[in-house]
């Protein structure tokens, strides 16, 4: 049996990260935005409806649960969001005529979303830069796992502002 080859000391494994210096942050909130994932902010369980839900049922669901948005799922995949803003923009003035129509007609389709492993800065980006107030959190199969509301982000900011 051949003798096991032992590398010479100079051929030892060199860790490519041995000289890596983690980024230093000047502000505890900046560190949290970079290093904490959206899993820390998201709210569960989420309020969910299907695309064929009548608009009046979706409005009643928003009101009774006292939430500002419903995630609309079809076959376990997120396909839209129906929010207070959709009620204001698309529903309120024509409610009598629209209320029995499916919510898919008035929901926001293909909403911006984040993955659970994304940084919390991604959620803030959706709100502050893209202008959406409610950010669905999904898994790789596009199933909704949670939602991030502005209230949750406000609480996150409070928690991390002072380190």
């Amino acid at each position, binding site marked *: 049996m051949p003798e096991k080859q032992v590398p010479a000391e100079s051929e030892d494994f060199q860790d490519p990260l041995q000289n890596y210096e983690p980024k230093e942050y*000047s*502000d*505890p*909130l*900046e560190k949290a*935005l*970079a290093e904490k994932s959206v899993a820390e902010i998201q709210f569960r369980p989420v309020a969910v409806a299907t695309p064929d839900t009548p608009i*009046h049922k979706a*409005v*009643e669901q*928003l*009101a*009774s649960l006292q939430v*500002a948005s419903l995630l609309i799922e079809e076959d376990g995949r997120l396909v839209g969001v129906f929010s*207070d*803003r959709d*009620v*204001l*923009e698309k*529903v*309120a*003035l024509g*409610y*009598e005529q629209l*209320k029995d129509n499916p919510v898919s007609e008035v929901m926001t*389709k*293909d*909403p*911006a*979303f*984040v*993955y659970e492993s*994304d*940084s919390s*800065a*991604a959620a*803030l*980006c*959706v*709100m*502050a*830069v*893209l*202008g*959406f*107030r409610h950010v669905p959190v*999904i898994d790789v199969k596009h199933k909704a796992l949670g939602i991030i509301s*502005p*209230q949750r*982000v*406000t*609480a996150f*900011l*409070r928690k991390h*502002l*002072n380190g």
Partner: protein
Amino acid sequence: MKMGLYENMRTETVGRLALRDPVVVQENATIRDAVTAMRKNKLGCAIVLDRNRVPQGLFPESELTQLLSKNSAVVNEPISKHLKKDWPTVKITDPIARVLDALESRNVRFLIVVNEDGQLAGLTGQKGLMEYVAEHFPGQVNVQRIGGNPYPVDREGA
């Protein structure tokens, strides 16, 4: 030297935030009038003022959803009947930290901004605060890759 965000929030004032122009409606307006103005201005609330421009109350879009769920014809009712009269305000000279305190303690999305005489000066809220944070940390916030359809034709508005 750049100060930390919390120090900035205690020294910079509400006037430093990007305040929104509020939607103002008359006391005798209907909810339909308010909704029309809110849609036009892409804003989620309307404010009623007295003759001295002092805010008398605020009508938020969340209240619209609550009302519609109970009465599909509610848009024809006077807004005065459904106004939230003890809505929190901040002064334009208050530190920005006060915005965070008020949003959190009152669990609201909007804050009415008034001047030293209590007259309406603007509107801010969660979105204004988040824009302020994003502005402070552009290297973290503005560079994110977002899934879905992140570039809508229209922003959702405040």
